[in-house]
């Protein structure tokens, strides 16, 4: 996917670096992590931005447009946060390649180098290699308000003289000094003089201690007075990282996130369901032709709608992750969770993605981006779909209500139905951590990259950045609903409604779906499933909860999890073993096109999603087989037979 997809000027090819007067001016934003680079990018571009992945690597970047001088626009690329330009990680490789002009169509004409001026000594380490590229560069000293508030000082003019590049002292959060950045961007349209001479010789660049001494000298020359330690951060850490209070607050945050995505999102989700249903009916009333109406209402609208229902929940989850990340608490949460996650071969940063996976694996896979270590990130992505996502709930609710008699197990506190539900959550969790251990001790083994995590100072999250984040995630989600899910919905509808018999829609048994269901039945027999469940499994490949609607259609009952008629029909058509096997099957199986699509996007190829699908299908089949055979007593008979 081209990253400058909607940039018209790219069609004609961007002008080579240094040429002026061409329409496309590309400016790259470079900076270390926690330098406030993204905040500045948001301020410069606002809503005129989008997320893109570099082809071939799993590195995300954002491109946006900034308006300068009436009708002129400059394209900004927000590069991944890096500490150096030595290409070791994917992030650094991409940043390096773009800055030296190796990426076709993305050669920047100028650079915005964003540094946190409350920690200038260390952040200047990146200035040496970036300025050595000798592109026109503006050194943006961010967090000017923080520096002042904590009693630090800097002389930007003196720093500019030392570095041989213009310097702007700004605060991206408050907008202070931002006009200097706009001036620089506007100037790109007429051309800048590049940095004249290399600042430091290359052998020095490779030597970090020498580079750091160079930074100290530059700082001294610019009358840099480092600020006092962040008092509020120390105070808050004494609460959030308190030996007893810290874990309690951590648990409270987890419960709050859980509660919000399940309980608080429910009314909105119910509202969405009603809205989709009534709008579907309204559309249907305007389409006279029965078959076309069925395709549009039952096929497309219901199919896409079943996924759209999850949008409020996903947005709420991302709002929480956004607040946690922007405020700086996420780093503390990762620190607290690290010890536990380490037991499964993972690390602290895997915690939030895995927590998200209880709502939906899709945002979880996206949230795994915060894990820099590639192998840990892949392992997290691989196990996320085993966590019990909310799409499994309708299936669990239906089967449990149909087959499990709700006897009290622990007095009034725990009934058999709730216990079964809880057991399924535990089952998914156990499968996830065992898979993690398996992966981390085999194909994703990593020992050479120890856990190191910078603790940024606490900051207030800004509405602007939270809002932009939600807009961004909605776009990604809706685009998928409009493409993958739409296609699958149409295919499924066609399979269930063709071939026509005497010009009429066949009943489900003689449709393509029915034929396929009968074909796969022999494979599913050992699991205790019949051909109807077979069709359900096929349609639920799109999304798990689709099976409920499908079974409703097949049994001619109302297709909801709480439908009494459907529960009774299932009860008389399946054995208890088959029902339990179905639950286990859904706990393990990768019945979700959306997740597969997002894993492909995030891992940059088909290898991992295919492996994931194969592994989870195998696990689901094996698990369901064992459960059904055990319930039928076959396994004990077999064991007794072997023992004889």
């Amino acid at each position, binding site marked *: 996917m081209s990253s400058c997809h909607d940039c018209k000027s790219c069609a004609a090819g961007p002008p080579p670096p240094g040429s002026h007067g061409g329409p496309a001016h590309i400016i790259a934003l470079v900076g270390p992590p926690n330098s406030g680079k993204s905040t500045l990018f948001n301020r410069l571009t606002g809503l005129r931005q989008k997320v893109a992945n570099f082809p071939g690597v799993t590195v995300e970047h954002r491109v946006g447009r900034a308006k300068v001088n009436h009708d002129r626009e400059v394209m900004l690329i927000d590069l991944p946060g890096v500490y150096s330009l030595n290409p*070791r990680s994917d992030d650094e490789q991409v940043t390096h390649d773009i800055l030296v002009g190796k990426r076709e169509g993305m050669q920047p004409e100028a650079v915005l180098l964003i540094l946190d001026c409350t920690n200038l000594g*260390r952040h200047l380490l990146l200035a040496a290699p970036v300025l050595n590229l000798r592109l026109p560069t503006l050194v943006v000293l961010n967090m000017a308000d923080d520096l002042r508030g904590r009693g630090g000082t800097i002389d930007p003019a003196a720093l500019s003289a030392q570095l041989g590049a213009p310097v702007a002292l700004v605060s991206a959060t408050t907008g202070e000094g931002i006009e200097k950045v706009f001036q620089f961007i506007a100037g790109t349209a007429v051309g800048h003089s590049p940095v004249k001479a290399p600042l430091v010789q290359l052998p020095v660049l490779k030597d970090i*201690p020498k580079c750091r001494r160079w930074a100290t000298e530059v700082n001294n020359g610019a009358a840099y007075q*480092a600020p006092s330690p962040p008092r509020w951060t120390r105070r808050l850490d004494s609460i959030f*990282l308190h*030996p007893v209070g*810290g874990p309690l607050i951590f648990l409270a945050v987890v419960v709050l996130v859980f509660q919000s995505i399940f309980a608080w999102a429910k009314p909105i989700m119910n509202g969405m369901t009603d809205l989709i249903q009534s709008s579907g009916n309204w559309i249907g009333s305007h389409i006279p032709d029965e078959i076309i109406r069925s395709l549009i209402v039952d096929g497309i609208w219901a199919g896409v709608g079943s996924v759209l229902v999850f949008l409020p929940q996903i947005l709420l989850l991302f709002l929480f992750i956004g607040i946690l990340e922007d405020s700086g608490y996420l780093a503390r949460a990762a620190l607290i969770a690290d010890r536990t996650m380490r037991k499964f071969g993972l690390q602290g940063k895997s915690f939030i993605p895995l927590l998200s996976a209880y709502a939906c694996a899709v945002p979880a896979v996206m949230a795994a981006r915060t894990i820099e270590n590639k192998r840990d990130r892949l392992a997290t992505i691989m196990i996320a779909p085993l966590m019990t996502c909310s799409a499994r709930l309708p299936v669990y609710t239906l089967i449990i209500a149909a087959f499990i008699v709700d006897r009290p197990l622990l007095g009034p506190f725990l009934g058999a139905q709730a216990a079964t539900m809880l057991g399924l959550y535990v089952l998914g969790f156990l499968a996830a951590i065992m898979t993690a251990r398996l992966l981390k001790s085999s194909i994703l083994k990593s020992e050479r990259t120890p*856990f190191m995590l910078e*603790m940024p100072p606490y900051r207030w999250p800004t509405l602007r950045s939270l809002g932009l984040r939600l807009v961004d995630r909605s776009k990604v989600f809706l685009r998928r609903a409009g493409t993958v899910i739409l296609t699958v919905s149409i295919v499924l509808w066609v399979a269930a409604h063709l071939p026509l018999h005497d010009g009429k829609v066949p009943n489900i048994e003689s449709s393509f779906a029915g034929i396929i269901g009968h074909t796969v039945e022999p494979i599913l027999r050992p699991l205790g499933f019949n051909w109807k469940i077979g069709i359900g499994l096929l349609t639920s490949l799109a999304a798990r909860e689709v099976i409920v609607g499908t079974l409703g259609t097949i049994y001619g009952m109302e297709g909801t999890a709480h439908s009494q008629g459907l529960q009774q029909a299932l009860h008389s058509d399946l054995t208890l073993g088959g029902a339990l096997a179905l639950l286990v099957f859904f706990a393990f199986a990768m019945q979700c096109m959306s997740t597969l699509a997002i894993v492909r996007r995030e891992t940059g190829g088909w290898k991992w999603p295919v492996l994931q699908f194969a592994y989870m299908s195998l696990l689901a089949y094996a698990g369901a087989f064992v459960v059904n055979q055990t319930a039928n007593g076959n396994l004990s008979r077999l064991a007794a037979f072997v023992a004889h």
Partner: protein
Amino acid sequence: MQLSFRKRRRRDALPARTLLELQPGEDGILDRLDLPEDVARRLMELGFLPGHVVGVGRSAPGGDPRVFRVDGSEVALRLETAARLHLRGGNPLPTTGIDCP
């Protein structure tokens, strides 16, 4: 010859002090990073440079990982990593690894 002398000397003297043994509120000067080069470079980019002052901050429950204050920032490390970062004064002899000039 000299190497073996160093080894014997280290065993007899106090054990080399590392970040692991720093007490909360105590500072030390980093001497060398006894880690593979790419890991050492990453740590140096985060501020763990020989000659820099390292302090101890808070830690996760159970004491691992622990937050270290170095070069104006706070970085959490697992104790297994902290044990490989040697402090000046604990082991008086400069040895292999990335030295401070």
